[in-house]
């Protein structure tokens, strides 16, 4: 049985970081434009594809910081 007072029962403050990759891709003013282009891609497309890296980076950090210590 797990002990309710054990550290992993408490939400970690690192979890709040996850708000960044949820909120940023929903702000259309950041990316709703054609220029500047990158490799021929309008900003609308390359920036939203770049948000994938933002998502991966954040979830990786949060995972590393919240995983159980052994």
């Amino acid at each position, binding site marked *: 049985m797990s002990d309710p007072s054990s550290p992993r029962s408490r939400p970690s403050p690192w979890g709040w970081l996850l708000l960044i990759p949820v909120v940023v*891709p929903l702000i259309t003013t950041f990316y*709703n434009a054609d220029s500047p282009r990158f490799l021929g891609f309008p900003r609308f497309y390359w920036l939203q594809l770049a948000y994938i890296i933002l*998502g991966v980076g954040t979830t990786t950090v949060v*995972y590393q910081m919240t995983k159980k210590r052994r």
Partner: protein
Amino acid sequence: MKDHVTEIVVFTILFLAVSAIGFVAARWRRPDDLLHLNEWGLGGRSFGGWITWFLIGGDLYTAYTFVAVPALLFAAGAAGFFAVPYTVIIYPMVMFVLARLWSVSHRHGFVTPADFVRARFQSPTLALLIALTGIVATMPYIALQLVGIESVLKTMGVVGASGFGRHLPLIIAFAILAAYTYQSGLRAPALIAFVKDALIYLVIIVAVFYLPAKLGGWGAIFDAANAKFTASPAKTDGIILNANNQLQYITLAFGSALALFLYPHSVTGVLASKNRDVIKRNMSALPAYSLLLGLIALLGFAAIAAKVTPIHGDGNTIVPSLFDKLFPDWFAGIAFAAVGIGALVPAAIMSIAAANLFTRNIYKEYLKRDASPQQEASVSKLASLVVKLGALAFVVFVNPQFSIDLQLIGGVIILQTLPSVGLGLYTRWFHRGALIAGWAAGLLLAFWMLWQIPNAATKHAHFGGSAFPLSKFGFDSTKSIYVGFVAVLVNLAVAAIVTLILRASKVADGGDDTVPEDYTADATDEPAAQGKGDADSEDLAPEPIT
């Protein structure tokens, strides 16, 4: 008329090879007894990081997505790219939610989201509604996978424009799928997913470099798309969003993200993993598929630049036609096989998930309370066949466009299970009666709104899309918003208000079969004593973390 023989031969060989894998899968990681719902329906709850990545990736990014999203960009431009923010925000959103769902399901042996709701709110009625919602939302989704296969078959010219015979290749393909799902359960799609994804990644990497080289580079492709949308009379298209569809864009992305892991087939993929760590690590690994999806989406613009026209007026044939036109025949055959096999994985998982819902929350709850795990597995196997027949009937007897509309409705209705399933993982505050009231209110509003939306392209007067003009609510605005988002807000408001009313009037609420520690338990912890299933706890040294 081009000769498609090479394509058909390559497609058929790959398709048959994968089918053989599907049958052999029954022996893969062989259990003592496959005739147990934990084994047939959840692959023994034992999948590690890699298998889970392939399985959930194959489950969420379906053949239909790979065909329909570029079709959307082809027709409407930037608005179709919502699939990218949608699949970026989903993983940070659900990282901890899914870990809780996994834990409580592990402790109690839950197989379906409705199992959880039943225990959490001690309400078989609410669980029944959740199960029915899940089954109804999943059926057209399976049908759409068939539409995905059909788009490839159409491009190869093996299905005509009319007549019953045109469906024969599809029926054969589906019969094979039904047979190996029946035999191998969740192990079949899990094993096939490796092949499917290897093929899809190969095709896309080649497409992303090869097609622009033929079409004058990505810059030229975007310029061709821009020229098309500038010339078209429609006001909503373009290679970037306009003032009126931005709200729709973000509410659709956000609402779709909320809905995705409420689908029973997504939950099946999550519960089949062996511990919490596998799920949390996958939240950083699954976005690789989002990149893939984003690149595939842009093939819609490549199709514009290549001046591809849809076959038989079916927009979903855009990508297959593009491959047909620009790839050498043998590689087009591989690409078609990737799409076709890509349809089999999710179709198998979806039918297993729907069958599990029927077995656990209808058959065991209402028809045979003392069903043994063996009987559950047998019923689930049969139910998976019935579900597939239903999906096939959709495609054969109903206009495919109609099943696409149904899938749209499916997303909106599955979202109405958010308060019970999603919020239920965090709070037991809602009254079980209030959750039913909110569910009903959300659904009624959603249907009213969807009824009002015409489809300009197909000339349907109703259920033509998910973008609802705010002006119909009486706002002085030309903007539109995603139906599901509005409906789930109303659902939540009703659930909250009715909870207060029912509490104030002291109407009896159910108890709660779960305890707080259940939501953080890991594979090393014992299953709860009252657990219905026999969650096997002996397998369970967690994987070392790299």
